[in-house]
């Protein structure tokens, strides 16, 4: 080890690091560390000049190890690994010390401590890098098939882009039909083109594309493997309808005597039967039997649908199917849930009949909706004379969700226009700030101002039917502080529409866990980088698109779907992927065959070899998590790149100033006596 020659590179990151950490002093100090032959500081190490500096030094000084003290390895580890490789150094002999996120950014108000911490981190990295061994990355072929999860507009678009380029796609959708929330809408802002007219051709294309296998009424249960080689288990729920016989004629649902409120497609505003197709343009066209509400499944008699089905397609005995998919890449486009406005009781949703949610109102304005597009009160007949639209219900509110849901202002304007067009009623919009930030959006706002929609700036305090003044009897009263006038106002209306927030799916955390990705504080899926890599995730080969990443409108979801597709296609065209060689390895000569590690491995990557009586790691499945390394009672499992020596040396390095001799002695841990 004495002959190893280390170069240390301390990055200023503009002012990000240099503004707090005394980088020059740190570099001078690092130059004195054992084995360090050169230490430099530079304004931007990641720039081409910075990288060239490293390459040049490797050649000139004969460096055998490199430490870059800069930002998180998430950000630039690949950059500096490539630089080392270009200069002929094995890329796994480079170590990063994160002195930005772990020092300058978190100790902004204490330059001295930040500088000390940077030294400790660099000292640890230098000690660690000496213990590293050269590794060669694995190469694995990429399977051509892509799994797209979620058949809303984002998933549809991603699936079509990939399929059109000639690669197979499997689209999994939880509901009986694809289409997502967009299929529920009547018009789309700001152009007011009909949602169905622009969506259904795409749905049809998905249903008929030779490269797309559509699995509706299905859910992903388990995901194994890694980029290029995922194995996914999908549960295809029993439709109780044989799709090879069904023609989608509709005889079954016309005859079905069980009428239930449709809380999914009709958002609770309309009814469906127990055997149903969510909407006429559904893809696929086949109905499903909802066993929870089907009279036959609940009471044992009925079978009306089976009796009348002309092709004998109803099959009550049909069971769920498990399908195993081998996919190279995954695109998650699982969408959003609408905020449950019952959580804000003072707005009266669920209590006061004529308070509606935005999705209920979408269905109401839809020509194919429960009212045939007529805007009426809950009694189903009375046309409202005045309508209040309340913005930010569950958004921009620290009691519920802090974030802005991005689409509600525009949707409220769209509602205002539709009301004006269909009924001539007075429309009041209660907004905090009008957010019309994309192309042609502000113009639409100006149009609604011209059309005579009333805008009241202020968060609504309550919606009540407790009349106080003349003219309030029998109305819903919106109590609000008009912050432009500086006065409390009470505005009596006939109908209230609550613009509920876009929330993460109720099971988003569970789904994220299943696919090995993360969720933000708010619960949306986390992208790899908020600006530069919004469609990738921290897990290679898993991409995200649409509202599962955060609130967004249709154009943005479509764009993101296409972007995810482009990323997938780029990987497919590379043909194979490089996989980190960070793996566990069992020293079979010393393995006692106790098999403790076998069941602990979260990736089932350890096999027991009966003949030899030892356990063996399958490197294709191993993720290098280190669970088995820590658990092995004989200490014969080694985590490559994270060896015992490398970790202990790093700790010694971190604690360089804690012992007078700069050296920490440690003892083998003794067995703890059973209590």
């Amino acid at each position, binding site marked *: 080890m004495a002959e190893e020659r280390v170069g240390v590179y301390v990055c200023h990151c503009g002012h990000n690091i240099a503004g707090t950490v005394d980088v020059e002093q740190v570099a001078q100090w690092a130059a004195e560390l054992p084995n360090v032959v050169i230490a430099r500081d530079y304004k931007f190490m990641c720039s081409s000049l910075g990288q060239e500096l490293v390459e040049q030094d490797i050649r000139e000084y004969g460096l055998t190890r490199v430490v870059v003290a800069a930002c998180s390895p998430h950000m630039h580890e690949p950059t500096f690994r490539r630089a080392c490789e270009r200069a002929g150094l094995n890329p796994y002999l480079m170590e990063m010390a994160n002195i930005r996120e772990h020092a300058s950014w978190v100790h902004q108000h204490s330059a001295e401590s930040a500088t000390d911490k940077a030294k400790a981190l660099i000292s640890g990295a230098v000690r660690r890098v000496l213990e590293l061994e050269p590794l060669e990355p694995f190469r694995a072929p990429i399977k051509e098939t892509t799994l797209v999860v979620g058949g809303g507009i984002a998933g549809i678009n991603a699936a079509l882009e990939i399929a059109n380029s000639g690669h197979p796609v499997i689209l999994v959708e939880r509901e009986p039909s694809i289409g997502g929330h967009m299929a529920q809408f009547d018009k789309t802002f700001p152009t007011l083109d009909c949602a169905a007219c622009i969506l259904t051709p795409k749905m049809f294309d998905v249903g008929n594309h030779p490269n797309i296998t559509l699995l509706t009424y299905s859910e992903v249960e388990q995901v194994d493997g890694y980029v290029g080689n995922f194995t996914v288990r999908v549960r295809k729920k029993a439709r109780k309808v044989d799709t090879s016989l069904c023609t989608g004629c509709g005889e079954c649902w016309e005859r079905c005597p069980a009428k239930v*409120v449709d809380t999914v497609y009709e958002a*609770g*505003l*309309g*009814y469906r039967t127990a055997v149903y197709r969510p909407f006429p343009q559904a893809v696929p066209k086949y109905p499903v039997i909802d066993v929870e509400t089907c009279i036959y499944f609940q009471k044992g008699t009925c079978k009306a649908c089976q009796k009348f089905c002309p092709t004998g397609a109803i099959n009550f005995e049909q069971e769920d199917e498990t399908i195993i998919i081998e996919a190279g890449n995954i695109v998650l486009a699982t969408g959003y849930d609408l905020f449950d406005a*019952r959580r*804000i*009781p*003072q707005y*009266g*949703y*669920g*209590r006061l*009949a004529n308070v509606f*949610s935005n999705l*209920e109102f979408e269905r*109401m304005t839809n020509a194919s909706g*429960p*009212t045939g597009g007529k805007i*009426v009160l*809950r*009694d*189903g*007949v009375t046309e409202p004379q005045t309508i209040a639209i309340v913005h930010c219900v569950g958004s921009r509110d620290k009691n519920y969700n802090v974030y802005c849901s991005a689409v509600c202002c525009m949707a409220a304007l769209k509602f205002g226009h539709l009301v004006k067009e269909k009924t001539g009623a007075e429309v009041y919009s209660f907004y905090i700030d009008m957010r019309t930030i994309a192309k042609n959006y502000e113009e639409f706002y100006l149009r609604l101002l011209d059309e005579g929609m009333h805008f009241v700036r202020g968060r609504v305090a*309550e919606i*009540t*039917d*407790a*009349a*106080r003044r003349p003219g309030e009897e029998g109305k819903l009263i919106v109590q609000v502080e008009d912050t432009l006038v500086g006065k409390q106002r009470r505005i009596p209306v006939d109908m209230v529409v609550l613009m509920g927030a876009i929330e993460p799916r109720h099971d988003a955390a569970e789904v994220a866990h299943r696919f090995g990705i993360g969720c933000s504080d708010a619960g949306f899926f986390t992208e790899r980088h908020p600006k530069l890599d919004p469609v990738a995730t921290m897990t290679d080969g898993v991409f995200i698109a649409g509202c599962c990443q955060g609130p967004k409108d249709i154009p943005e979801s479509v764009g993101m779907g296409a972007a995810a597709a482009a990323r997938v296609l780029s990987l497919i065209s590379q043909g194979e992927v490089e996989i980190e060689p960070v793996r566990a390895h069992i020293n079979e000569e010393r393995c006692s065959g106790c098999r403790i590690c076998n069941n602990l491995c979260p990736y089932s990557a350890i096999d027991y070899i009966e003949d030899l009586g030892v356990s063996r790691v399958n490197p294709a499945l191993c993720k290098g998590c280190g669970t088995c390394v820590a658990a092995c009672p004989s200490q014969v499992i080694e985590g490559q790149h994270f060896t015992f020596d490398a970790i202990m040396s790093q700790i010694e390095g971190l604690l360089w100033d804690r012992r007078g001799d700069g050296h920490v002695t440690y003892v083998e841990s003794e067995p703890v006596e059973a209590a």
Partner: protein
Amino acid sequence: MSQTNGHSYAYYPGCSLQATAHAYDLSTKRVADILGMQLQEVDDWNCCGATEYFSIMSLPAYSLVARNLALAANQGAQELVAPCSACYLNLRKTNDYMGKYRSKVGDPVNEALAAGGLHYTPGTVSVRHLLDVLVTDIGYDAIAAKVTYPLKGLRIAPYYGCLIVRPDTQYNPEYPTHLDELMRVLGATVVDFPLKAHCCGGHMTQISEEVAYELIRRILHNAAEYEADLIVTLCPMCQLNLDAYQPQANRMFGTSYNLPVLFFTQLMGLAFGLDAKDVGIGSEIVSARNALAKIGREEEPAERTPTRRDKKALPMPPMP
């Protein structure tokens, strides 16, 4: 914590419960007995300062309240229960602020207490409102188990007032429902009551009758509109305003509301099988006799069920 000490609390009745709201005190003690709660009155307690003292001289006001906390702590209490909303707020505020603003409130208050040989470490006792103690510590199930005379057929407007929902609690400050739930447990019908947490006028009756009576009228009107037989409250101030000033408000607006206003503990007592007299019913100004006579009369009028549900009507979102 309350489990370990077997539902034992220090009890701070406050001045109202010795005067206008003596029925609240009486019924609280009877109900506590039945539910196996030990209420130990704070010995030698004094005024909570109400709202006025805090507006005029805050430090003496905090010290006044802190004396009660110190006495309760010296009695070995871990939890202090106050049935009056104003007392509850003042005690809780003082307890919180003495810890939160140590140099401005905590230390000077303790300096004042020292003159009387007392000291209070903020947070030693936790201040609870009676309703919270009943629904959280005792629980709806234990209360339901004691109901022998369900208040069937009685339509109740649950009135919370403004004070108990304001300190940060687990209850929704805009639209609380724990009193609703308690009344249902007693067998009563609870009406929707949008003004349940609105202002009763407080001491405005002494300052501006027009303002106060209008606030009182709104609440009475709202309860009457939902066809409540009576209003149930948990605050002596609310009870006094809605009950004692009901005739004046009627006179001012030419209305004829006749809505009795009772404390929730009085109804608990009735449901537990106590005599009306034992829980102080009869001391209210708007008599509750006619309203209470409806209990048990199985006459759920048919016209109250919504009749608008015809084929054209759209489904309502279901409530949990």
